[in-house]
């Protein structure tokens, strides 16, 4: 290298730099002051959005390059868009104009001083030749505030590789996109540029001391075309064209400056120009390492960095798939921007999963807003205002860190200015609650609560559920079907309702089970929902503790698999019902579902009704009863109509069923819903005298041949019991005196309705009491036969008779032929007194039914 043209000012780093000393020539390049790398311009957020591209590549403007010379117009405005260098051509058209004319090319003569005219346009440092390298270093300092590509900002520099001539340097330190490239690897450079179009982010890497211009001095002889060209350009001396050529040479990719894709400012300011091998290694590490593929996107605000618009990318450039991160692998930039994609990813992440620094930033922002209500919200801050950690001693401050500090100071100043400009508006608080709404809510609450108080009985304008079911109503049919159960019958109760819905239909369920137990049948509870099974068990235990504890009610096991479990029960009832929910043998002898005498489906959802009906009903001939909620009624009605099955719907039917069953009976008989026992039985008259049949029930004295009955006649006694019940019912029908029926006109008022109720009490008491007594002895048979003899004495006057509507439904014929023996069933261990109690209650109910017939409210 010619020593005379050795830029020794590059070696002298101690020389201070003057901003107005010799940098005028940059104005002609950069296109004016606004393009000068001024710290005030770097990264300054203008409208709250951060222009990453400007921030990343400094203030290099393509217009500046175009203004310099015409051939620079061929350069892309993108510093990474490097075209393949063509071989030197003889075509004059490929040569810039100023090169084609000899007169425009200033001849360089090393010994001759520059002309005075030309020297005026040259930088001062070219005049003296002593311009210190500090100029460049200071320029580097300012330009270093901008974030650079990772391989420009640091990384380990391989000194040995730098010492080698450019042509001898190990290609292994080059990035992969440079190693295989012919002719400066322009296409790979474009690929790399495309990758930066897709993903632009910073990778924090510590800066090394070697990241300076020392490589320029260490190189003894710059080899290759670059050094020659640089020397030639420098030798051109004072003309502007020479400066342009110098810059063009720096921009022009050479064999030693493989990338050629750095921005102008970086080339002039810092360690650019020829990336060090260490930087190349860092870049290669960055591009090939897993960190590039799995970096934490949450650490960057891509909305701010990339902006709302998708970043354009040259169509011919494709990034190797191996280098494409996962989050961008199936996304086209032209269709979905990376910012949008990252925005979606970031929105999906809860706050708790954000990194600590982002959460701290968020908390800081929230606290700032809440601390000063009314103040304007500062623009989104990319960098927190907290001071960065001080670099460790002996380590030069990172240029990126200085840039962050600068950004922080700018945003802090902007936020302070806006905060000072906007005064917090005084917010006047109005009423916290809306007064009309409060009034309406209070009125509604009062209207709901007061009717429950007896003092406000007049507010009970809502119709109460009927005491008895309407004639031929589905619920009445259901009651009759359950009432047909006999001792030893097995009733399957399929509970497929949520525990919450049991509050609505649980009353009907327990009433049906109590009714079956009163008929000495055996209820078996199963469910496809384990929670519902437990809830049903608790509810039944609460109402029928004795039957539950005595295992008169069997709680089967949970049937898994929904419809599969139901089908399993239908196909394998012996196995499915072999054990109860506690794992104890159930002692049920069920070989087929056809052995079930009644199936009750308790459900609050359409699916439950559907699966139980479809999987079980086709296999059985037993009657089916639905106990469903009001919400499931429409679908249950469809199946009920198809199967001819009755159904009980909702809370009102539950109350009516219990009322009709007598579950609300007090010590003296049936109690209507909504009427307290004391009010019922204290205010009633005692028309005992009207029931004269009492002395006629004397056959009890004749029932003495108890010993004549053999124990084998127990079954016949049980059968006689049912016959006696039926007979007795009709007998009591005849006992209705005209007094009771004559009050039918007054039944509209509750007062009159209660009156016949009381009349039924004495009538039922004497007549029913002997019937269970007779069931113990064969005299009951005689009682039944003797009933008709009593009937004429109890016959009412013709024309005023009112038959009790009860028992209008004929008893269903037994499904089993008479000659077929009943399979062995679980023996009922219910004590007889309970059966007596049931008979008493049943008689009470029937008598009351007759008495209450005028008061019946049809549904």
């Amino acid at each position, binding site marked *: 290298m010619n020593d005379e043209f050795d830029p020794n000012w590059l070696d002298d780093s101690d020389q201070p730099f003057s901003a107005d000393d010799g940098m005028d020539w940059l104005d002609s390049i950069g296109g004016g002051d606004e393009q000068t790398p001024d710290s005030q311009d770097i990264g300054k957020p203008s409208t709250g959005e951060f222009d990453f591209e400007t921030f990343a590549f400094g203030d290099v403007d393509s217009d500046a390059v175009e203004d310099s010379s015409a051939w620079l117009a061929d350069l892309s405005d993108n510093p990474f868009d490097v075209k393949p260098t063509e071989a030197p051509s003889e075509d004059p058209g490929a040569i810039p104009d100023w090169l084609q004319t000899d007169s425009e090319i200033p001849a360089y003569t090393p010994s001759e001083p520059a002309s005075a005219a030309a020297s005026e346009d040259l930088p001062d440092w070219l005049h003296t030749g002593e311009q210190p390298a500090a100029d460049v270093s200071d320029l580097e300092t300012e330009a270093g505030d901008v974030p650079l590509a990772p391989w420009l900002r640091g990384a380990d520099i391989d000194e040995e590789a730098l010492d080698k001539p450019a042509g001898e340097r190990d290609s292994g330190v080059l990035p992969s996109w440079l190693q295989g490239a012919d002719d400066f690897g322009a296409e790979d450079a474009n690929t790399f540029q495309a990758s930066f179009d897709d993903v632009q982010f910073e990778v924090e890497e510590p800066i090394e001391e070697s990241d300076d211009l020392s490589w320029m001095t260490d190189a003894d002889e710059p080899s290759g075309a670059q050094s020659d060209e640089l020397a030639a350009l420098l030798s051109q001396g004072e003309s502007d064209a020479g400066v342009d050529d110098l810059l063009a040479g720096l921009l022009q990719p050479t064999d030693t400056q493989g990338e050629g894709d750095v921005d102008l400012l970086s080339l002039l300011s810092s360690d650019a120009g020829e990336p060090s091998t260490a930087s190349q290694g860092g870049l290669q590490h960055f591009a090939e390492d897993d960190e590039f593929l799995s970096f934490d996107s949450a650490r960057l605000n891509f909305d701010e960095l990339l902006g709302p618009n998708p970043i354009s990318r040259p169509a011919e450039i494709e990034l190797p798939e191996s280098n494409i991160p996962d989050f961008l692998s199936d996304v086209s930039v032209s269709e979905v921007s990376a910012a949008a994609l990252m925005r979606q990813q970031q929105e999906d992440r809860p706050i708790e999963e954000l990194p600590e620094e982002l959460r701290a930033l968020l908390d800081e922002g929230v606290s700032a807003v809440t601390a000063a209500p009314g103040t304007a919200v500062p623009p989104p801050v990319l960098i927190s205002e907290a001071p960065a950690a001080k670099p460790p001693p002996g380590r030069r401050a990172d240029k990126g860190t200085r840039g962050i500090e600068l950004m922080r100071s700018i945003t802090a100043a902007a936020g302070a200015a806006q905060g000072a400009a906007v005064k917090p508006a005084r917010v006047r608080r109005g009423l916290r609650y809306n007064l009309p709404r409060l009034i309406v809510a209070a009125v509604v609450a009062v209207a709901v609560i007061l009717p429950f108080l007896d003092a406000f009985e007049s507010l009970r*304008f809502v*119709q109460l559920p009927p005491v008895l079911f309407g004639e031929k109503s589905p619920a009445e049919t259901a009651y009759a079907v359950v009432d047909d159960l006999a001792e030893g019958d097995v009733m399957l109760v399929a509970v497929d309702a949520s525990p919450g819905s049991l509050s*609505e239909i649980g009353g009907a369920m327990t009433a049906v089970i109590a009714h079956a137990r009163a008929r000495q049948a055996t209820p078996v509870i199963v469910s496809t929902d384990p929670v519902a099974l437990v*809830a049903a068990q608790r509810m039944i235990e609460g109402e029928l503790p004795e039957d539950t504890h005595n295992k008169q009610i069997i709680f089967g096991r949970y049937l898994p698999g929904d419809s599969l479990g139901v089908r*399993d029960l239908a196909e394998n009832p012996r196995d499915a019902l072999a054990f109860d929910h506690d794992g104890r043998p159930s002692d049920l002898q069920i070989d087929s579902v056809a052995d079930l005498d009644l199936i009750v489906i308790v459900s609050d959802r359409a699916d439950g009704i*559907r699966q139980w009906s479809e999987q079980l009903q086709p296999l059985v001939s037993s009657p089916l009863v639905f106990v469903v909620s009001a919400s499931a009624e429409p*679908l249950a009605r469809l199946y009920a109509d198809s199967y001819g099955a009755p159904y009980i719907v909702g809370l009102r039917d539950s109350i009516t069923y219990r009322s009709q069953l007598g579950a609300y009976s007090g010590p003296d008989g049936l109690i209507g819903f909504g009427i307290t026992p004391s009010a019922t039985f204290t205010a009633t008259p005692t028309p005992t005298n009207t029931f004269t049949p009492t002395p006629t029930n004397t056959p009890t004295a004749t029932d003495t041949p108890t010993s004549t009955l053999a124990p084998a006649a127990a079954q016949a006694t049980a059968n006689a019991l049912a016959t006696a019940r039926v007979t007795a019912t009709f007998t009591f029908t005849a006992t209705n005196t005209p007094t009771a029926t004559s009050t039918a006109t007054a039944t509209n008022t509750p007062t009159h309705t209660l009156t016949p109720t009381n009349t039924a009490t004495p009538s039922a008491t004497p007549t029913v009491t002997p019937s269970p007594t007779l069931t113990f002895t064969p005299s009951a048979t005689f009682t039944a036969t003797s009933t008709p003899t009593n009937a004429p004495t109890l016959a009412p006057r013709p024309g005023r008779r009112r038959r009790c509507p009860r028992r209008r439904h004929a008893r269903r014929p037994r499904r089993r032929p008479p000659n077929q023996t009943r399979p062995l069933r679980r023996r009922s261990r219910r004590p007889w007194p309970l059966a007596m109690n049931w008979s008493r209650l049943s008689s009470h109910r029937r008598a009351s039914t007759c008495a209450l017939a005028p008061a019946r409210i049809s549904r």
Partner: protein
Amino acid sequence: MRLRLGAVLVTALTIGIALITLVGLLGTNIGPISAQIERFGITDFARLLLQFAAVTAAVAVLVGVVNLLGVHLRRTRRRGQAIYSAVLILSFVIVLGFGILPRDNEARAAVDGVQIALETAFSGLVLFSLVYGAVTIANRRPSWASLLFVATVVTVLVGALPVRGLGPIATVADWLNRVPVDAGGRAILLGIALATVIAGVRVLIGQGRATRE
């Protein structure tokens, strides 16, 4: 066309079992061949398969419970969500203890006081959801369909009230339940039946999702 041995085996197994189960469950309802089905034990084999499936479903429930516990055990290490997971695990242990070591009616208290109460409360919210939905529909963009929806909801709700003097509305509500609702319900059931048949046929011909992939 490339066939994988495993996929072919799974498909053949699925089709075979499906056919055996179908024929076995049809049982005695398919005329003269019912006796043959019974004689070859296809019905019993189908019932056995059914029991296998039911047991598998029960085990799946147990596995689900264990998995749920594992997930919440891991979540107890997270900030902000640990309390909920800890409460769930503690509740599980307590209720399990009620079942294993019963003393009194603790389990009943847990079911009645927590489960039923909560579900009842949620059921009560259905009314508010309906009313809110009706108001929202009426406010946003009234159309004939939305007005019809709101009018139907109001009519059915008012018709269900046991208040005297609402006889005409109750009659209209009863008609709505009898005619349009029944028609819609039957349409839904027909759709379910057709979909079930199609799903079954797809399994039988090897086009089910599990066997196709």
